[in-house]
């Protein structure tokens, strides 16, 4: 659930014709002063961060004059609240409150429909109210196919004892709230409180929207950079990973950093799960052996080898991890050798000196384990591959033993050297990268195994040199699924003539920064 700020939510309400207090967003005390001056009335200043209970945290202040608004803004801006630094505040007219109500929309998984809820007793302690004064709370389940009619809302609100002009005013607001929520694919939408002023007007005094992660793509206007609910701002590495996820829709790659500054003393590991359920079970197994997770990562849903490669590169950008642990459900439907090749490429490039336990149970696990064991023999870190009949608990124990054998050596993050490739080399683009083949080397190669290894069958020989059998455009559009088979084959069985460049924007700079810290 991606969150948007209060001021953004209010803008949506205003566009829908719901009354909101007059105000504006300030990033400096001076701006706060000028907004207060424009309003010409006492104001309230509210920090714009993703936390609840802002008042209790000292994040809401009142000011009678523009000068006072400036002072209070100076106090609020830059303040640290939970994991956030305050960068913006909302300066609004202070309302003359007569009564407070609550309106909210949630998605009910049991009824498979949105539910609109109204409380005539406000929203504070609403669970309590629901228990003690159920007559003050009313709700309606909405059939998305039919939409919501204003009379339905009137009937719902009427049950809480509200009548007259107020009833029609509130009904209009709640109907519009639902429309707005639907339009913007809200996962939840709340107006708390809805304020009735002494002059009989209803305002959305505060409001919160979360947007469905899967629908963020429909709403570029909301400017959501990471479609995910965080209780802190995303880390730099998470932003880098998120871009990878966004650019490559084949399978899932979810990356969450649990700890940013891992010390050399900690028993932390890089975690690469597959599938929510299997990852959770595997996490339970390593956590119960006293490991700490540097990160949580999920590569599943039949990801391309290139995606797993990038995931490994991101995970290996975390200094001081002691091991690499990959494990999913154990009986995955996806073809596991793709993941194996992605890991082989990444571990080779990194020359990792920490051990890895890779549990790739599922389809073609024998082949996957063979790829891992065959090709990762010669790197400094010891890598072991396992399948569906090896439990996560057993694998976690192996991880622990291997780390001990390795004297608790910490992972050192390496610089990324961008390859220098002579421009005259044969090359073609893929969905997210580029394949280079050094045809000079191919002259010495007798069996031309790259052709056979390409399961997509898109390589063919031309004068003894492998070239695309299809158009370049087709390869770029996905006919080359970036399975990495040609590169892995050629590196270990032939002339090391193939290089597949799979850039990860921002990772080089990130690593340079990390390296300069130690």
């Amino acid at each position, binding site marked *: 659930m991606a969150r948007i700020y209060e001021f953004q939510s209010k803008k949506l309400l205003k566009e829908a014709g719901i009354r909101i207090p007059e105000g504006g967003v300030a990033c400096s005390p001076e701006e706060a002063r000028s907004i207060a001056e424009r309003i010409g009335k006492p104001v309230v200043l509210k920090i714009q961060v993703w936390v609840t209970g802002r008042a209790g945290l000292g994040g809401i202040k009142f000011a009678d004059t523009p000068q006072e608004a400036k002072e209070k803004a100076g106090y609020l801006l830059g303040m640290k609240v939970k994991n956030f630094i305050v960068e913006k505040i909302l300066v609004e007219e202070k309302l003359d409150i007569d009564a407070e109500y609550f309106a909210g929309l949630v998605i009910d998984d049991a009824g*498979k429909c949105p539910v609109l809820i109204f409380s005539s007793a406000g929203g504070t302690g609403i669970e309590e109210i629901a228990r003690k004064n159920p007559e003050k709370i009313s709700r309606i389940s909405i059939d998305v196919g039919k939409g919501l009619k204003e009379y339905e809302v009137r009937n719902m609100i009427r049950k809480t004892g509200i009548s007259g002009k107020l009833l029609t005013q509130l009904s209009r607001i709640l109907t519009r709230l639902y429309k707005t929520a639907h339009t913007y694919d809200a996962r939840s939408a709340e107006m708390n409180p809805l304020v009735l002023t002494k002059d009989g007007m209803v305002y959305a005094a505060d409001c919160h929207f979360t947007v469905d992660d899967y629908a963020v793509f429909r709403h570029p206007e909301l400017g959501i950079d990471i479609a995910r609910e965080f209780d802190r701002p995303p880390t730099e590495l998470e932003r880098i990973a998120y871009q990878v996820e966004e650019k490559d829709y084949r399978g899932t790659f979810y990356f969450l950093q649990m700890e940013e500054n891992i010390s050399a003393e900690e028993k932390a590991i890089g975690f690469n799960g597959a599938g929510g359920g299997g990852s959770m079970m595997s996490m339970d197994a390593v956590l119960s052996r006293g490991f700490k997770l540097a990160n949580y990562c999920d590569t599943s849903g039949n990801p391309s080898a290139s995606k797993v490669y990038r995931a490994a590169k991101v995970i290996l950008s975390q200094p001081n991890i002691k091991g690499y642990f990959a494990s999913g459900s154990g009986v995955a*439907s996806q073809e596991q050798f793709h993941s194996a090749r992605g890991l082989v490429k990444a571990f080779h490039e990194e020359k990792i000196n920490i051990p890895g336990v890779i549990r790739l149970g599922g389809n073609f696990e024998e082949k996957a384990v063979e790829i891992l064991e065959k090709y990762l023999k010669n790197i400094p870190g010891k890598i072991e591959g396992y399948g569906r009949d090896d439990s996560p608990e057993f694998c976690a124990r192996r991880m622990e033993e291997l780390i001990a054998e390795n004297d608790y050596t910490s992972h050192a993050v390496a610089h990324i050297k961008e390859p220098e490739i002579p421009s005259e080399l044969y090359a073609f683009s893929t969905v997210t990268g580029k394949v280079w083949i050094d045809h000079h080397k191919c002259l010495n190669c007798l069996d031309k195994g790259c052709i056979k290894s390409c399961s997509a069958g898109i390589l063919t020989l031309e004068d003894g040199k492998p070239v695309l059998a299809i158009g370049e455009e087709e390869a770029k559009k996905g006919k080359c699924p970036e399975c990495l088979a040609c590169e892995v084959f050629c590196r270990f069985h032939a002339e090391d003539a193939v290089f597949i460049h799979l850039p990860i924007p921002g990772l080089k700079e990130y690593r340079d920064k990390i390296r300069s810290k130690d």
Partner: protein
Amino acid sequence: MSILVDDGSKVVVQGITGREGKVRTQLMKDYGTNVVGGVTPGKGGSEVYGIPVFDSVEEAWEKTGPVDISVVFVPAALVKDAALEAIAAGVKLVVIVPDRVPIFDVLEISSFARAHGASFVGPNTLGLVSPGKAVLGMIGGRAERAKEWFKPGNIGVSSRSGGMTSAISYYLTEAGLGQSTIVHVGGDAVVGLSHPEVMELFEQDEQTKLIVMFGEIGTTQEERVAGLIESGKLTKPVIAYIGGKAAKSGTRFSHAGAIVEGTRGSHASKVERLTGAGVYVVDAISDIPLKAAELMEAAGGQK
């Protein structure tokens, strides 16, 4: 019998000409699923593995006779349209494999399905399999694998995690315990057939003697299963595992959510409710085949 699908069911594949659609159609066909046609608008008249491709579900219906099930493999943004199309054509069960389907789209499909007396599995599902009869979706990945991992028998499996659906069923097979139908209900917050609905189908199914359920934190599905048992609508024995014990419970941002869900959703709540209702809640996946063997034995030694 089995639930939702058996060897007689007639199946179409929407998005049959796409990357996933093609590969999974091969799985289904090789397994023995009765795939009578594929649908990709604009590609009508072509063939995929000898299966005729039509421009619409309606056309498939006209040319191949009534269709029981449609399996959908189109990009997430097009899922709603595809599902509504299938239901409007008369299909009564839609299996929605893609993930990342916007929730309001799912709600709209749900409303439409209800109005037409249809149901759907997913989105974000690996699909389902009635061992020895038919596979829908991509569970197993390849036909040989699906045949090796899943065997016919008397245990119904319902899971919210795709990987764990296969894992649990495979471990049951290893222990010599076959399955009636295996359903991955899908990983999203709102899904078509959720655990309780699948339980009710298992309750009606003669072949199913025992049910294994893989639950997870979040949503009210497992609590509703407890409710079914308490109200006498579910009488067959149930073994459950609830994932997510180690996960920290997220901050609840919505007051309204608290009213609708109450304290439901947490690991503790689910375990407590299910245990209270008489479900065998196990702590490790490896306990599932053990417990299942014990219960099957008690039920009369049939496996």
